[in-house]
């Protein structure tokens, strides 16, 4: 049962990953990417890493890919034209591809020799979230804090890059508005006929 599920899921991941590159329409590419993320989460559930699977769905599918889609839909770029010149970069692409393939082969050949029972969660073992939390906040505390700071800097950088003070924009001050009373804004006058105010 697990094996069948594994083969089906990984076939979907690989196919959709190929479609990400192959699709003509950039929006379709992002949609295929979302499918790949989602199925990868399914693969993680299969090996019993349910916490990581949920995190992938929440973070990558639920937030990152939405922003991707957002940006790609808003851009009015002719991607077919953009792809014209990309052929001259193929040596770089080849190099990166080879390096990536070598890494994957290294990692998989190192892990296939490992005892498969190491992946089986035994009953009574701490759940995923507890196990990750136990090492993340003790052994890897420094790395964890550092990645937090890096993300914060990236966030501030993005804000600084896009922030521009526009003097011509009328801003609403909510505090001022809720403090406004009727007596501040209106006045009752007895107007004499024929005089006006």
């Amino acid at each position, binding site marked *: 049962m697990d094996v069948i599920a594994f083969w089906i899921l990984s076939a979907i991941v690989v196919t959709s990953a190929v479609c990400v590159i192959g699709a003509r*329409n950039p*929006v*379709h590419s992002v*949609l295929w990417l*979302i499918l790949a993320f989602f199925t990868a989460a399914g693969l993680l559930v299969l090996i019993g890493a*349910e*916490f990581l699977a*949920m*995190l992938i*769905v*929440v973070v990558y*599918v*639920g*937030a990152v890919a*939405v*922003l991707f*889609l*957002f940006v790609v*839909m*808003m851009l009015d770029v002719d991607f077919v034209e953009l792809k014209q010149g990309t052929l001259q970069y193929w040596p770089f692409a080849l190099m990166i591809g080879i390096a990536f393939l070598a890494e994957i082969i290294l990692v998989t050949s190192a892990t296939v020799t490992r005892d498969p029972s190491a992946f089986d969660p035994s009953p009574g073992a701490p*759940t*995923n*979230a507890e196990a990750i939390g136990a090492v993340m906040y003790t052994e890897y505390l420094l790395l964890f804090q550092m990645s937090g700071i890096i993300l914060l800097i990236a966030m501030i950088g993005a804000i600084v890059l896009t922030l521009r003070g526009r003097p011509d924009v009328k801003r*609403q001050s*909510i505090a001022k508005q809720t403090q406004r009373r009727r007596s501040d804004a209106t006045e009752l006058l007895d107007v004499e006929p024929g005089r006006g105010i």
Partner: protein
Amino acid sequence: MSSLIEANGPLFGTLLVFGQIGLFVLVLLLSLAFLLLLDRKVWAAVMMRKGPNVVGPFGLLQSFADFGKFLLKEIIIPAGANKTVFLLAPIITCTLAFAAWAVIPVAPGIERGTSWAVADLNVGILYLFAISSLGVYGIIMGGWASNSKYPFLASLRSAAQMVSYEVSLGFVIITVILLVGSMNLSDIVNNQSDGFWSWHAFSFNNILLFPVMFGMFIIFFVSALAETNRPPFDLAEAESELVAGYQVEYSSTPYLLFMVGEYLNIVLMCAMMTILFLGGWHGPVPVGDWINDYPLLNSLGGLFWFMAKIVFFFFMFAMVKAMVPRYRYDQLMRLGWKIFLPTSLAAVLIVSGYVVYTGVQA
């Protein structure tokens, strides 16, 4: 789920799981028909109208008549629309809305210590959060594939809105998880078994947390309104500016799927509030241990309280729709990012400090 398969053999166990799923879908669809009517009736009553009252006694069959109408109409696909994505969008919305119900525990199980849910996941609350964060795809795909300006604008608005309010929803959920010490929905419900004073919305048993948790309850309710695109945050539909938002170009069955998905998400949010804050299937006063000798009564009573609380929350949703004027878009964003996010972040700090200091966590 897996325990069912283990107890009944692979074939019969799988059939049982499918039966459970079928029962869930059937009950959800049937109750949705009447909840839709309730929504319209409440709305009508606030406006001093009668609401639907022609089809069947008190208009009870109105939703079924609408259902037939939707099915029999012609599906119109606009020219230049991206056909696959256009038809995929409502299907995704509807499927996700149903998928989320897989982990909702609706009643205590017949066996002691179990609960009646299709799948009692250890990361149940994360699963719910993940599925509800995917709901935005149906809207954004539908808006884009329609090849029309209004739906596209609406889907952009809606995407930004849903991503913003998810943040505060997530933090509110974290405060509850901190109090319980588990992400399993049944554990969260069982943490509130001592009557209404132990419900997380009030948490009178940790009296110092009462103002914090009650505030979180309110924030969750308002964020749920925004997350489901309900009034006063229904800027995705905003009929006065965007015609009807992302569903302008939809007709017939695809529109029906959108509507069913939307309302199912609302009911799901009601169920989440029930589980997280109002004690799930537990009644307001503990009945005592004798109930454990009558497991069937226990289950049915639990189901009654669960459904009663969901209907209560749905009524609140309907009342808000009837009474509150629509927000402006910048006000909506301000509320999400400048008020709800800092408040819920501070609440996470306070609650985790409290939990560490007193060690109340189970």
